[in-house]
């Protein structure tokens, strides 16, 4: 999933302070799972904002809605008949949702309520970590299911660097060396021969370095 974290409430207050009618829009997908922008978080933030403005003697209307997704047009359409009532939308979706909302409702300012961080997993409640950088050319089959692009600080493809010490990365004692993990898993799977094979030079043009990307599939396109 896409992992995000709530913006500090002071930053949100500053960004919406110029508006008198605000629609706070949550998203039922990734940001709900990482407890940053689901229905619950929408309720708490809306309540906090209402109280803040009430305390300042300002009458700011803050309404709440949580959509199934904000990265699909059909769900964004659900607010079309009410969008004109608001001076701004405060979206608690990831950066993708915020942008698609802004594209869909071109004349309404759309502001982000979360900081989008990465594609990752819930290791435990309250702890998320990165697993994929969407490089566009998956190498997990050769690396024991552990990604050297997202989990190795240097994105190395043929074993660890000299900074790997006792299984940890030189960046931090809390950070596992991805290549240690890969070797451990290949050993466990009895496939250490895979490690001996030199990885071909990676085509980075499918990664972000090649500019903004898109996937076009004629088989499913209508």
């Amino acid at each position, binding site marked *: 999933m896409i992992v995000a974290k709530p913006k*500090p*409430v*002071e930053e949100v*207050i500053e960004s919406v302070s110029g508006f008198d009618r605000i629609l706070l829009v949550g998203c039922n997908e990734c940001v709900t799972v990482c407890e940053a922008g689901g229905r*619950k978080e929408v*309720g*708490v933030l809306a*309540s*906090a*904002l*209402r*109280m*803040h403005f*009430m*305390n*300042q*003697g300002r*009458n700011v209307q803050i309404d709440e809605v949580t959509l199934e997704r904000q990265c699909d047009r059909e769900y964004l359409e659900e607010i079309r008949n009410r969008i004109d009532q608001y001076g701004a939308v405060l979206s608690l979706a990831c950066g993708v949702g915020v942008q698609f909302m802004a594209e869909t409702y071109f004349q309404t300012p759309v502001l982000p309520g979360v900081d989008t961080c990465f594609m990752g997993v819930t290791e435990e409640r309250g702890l998320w970590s990165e697993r994929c950088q969407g490089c566009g050319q998956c190498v997990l089959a050769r690396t024991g299911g552990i990604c050297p692009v997202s989990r190795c600080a240097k994105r190395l493809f043929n074993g660890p660097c000299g900074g790997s010490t006792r299984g940890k990365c030189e960046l931090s004692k809390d950070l596992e060396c991805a290549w240690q993990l890969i070797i451990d898993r290949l050993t466990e799977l009895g496939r250490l021969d895979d490690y001996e094979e030199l990885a071909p030079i990676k085509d980075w043009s499918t990664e972000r370095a090649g500019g903004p990307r898109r996937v076009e599939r004629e088989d499913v396109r209508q």
Partner: protein
Amino acid sequence: MRLQYPGSVRIVSVPCTGKVDLIHIMRAFEKGADGVYVLGCMEGECRYESGNLRARKRVDKARDLLERIGIGGERVAMYNLSSSEAPRFVAYAREMTERIKKLGPNPIKATSKKHKAAGAGAA
């Protein structure tokens, strides 16, 4: 034991303090409560293992958020006691009531009154 506790305290009973969510505390303030305290079982003695520990985290979160938005974090508290400790129940109710009296009423009540008065004047 028939002990008296301050009449300003309104009790909302829940099956376990683990049921208390951040939004419940926020809504209480939004509706004009001057203070909120959560009274849970002793730590380590939760029938559901961690209900009271979760509640404490949510109270901490509420305190932080209310401080940041200018309502005042000191208006929220968490206390722990056993169900048979009536005198302690009263002591906590008094302690909290005293604290809130010192802090004064929920600031949004004053401003919303002013707001309404101004609105009525203009009409």
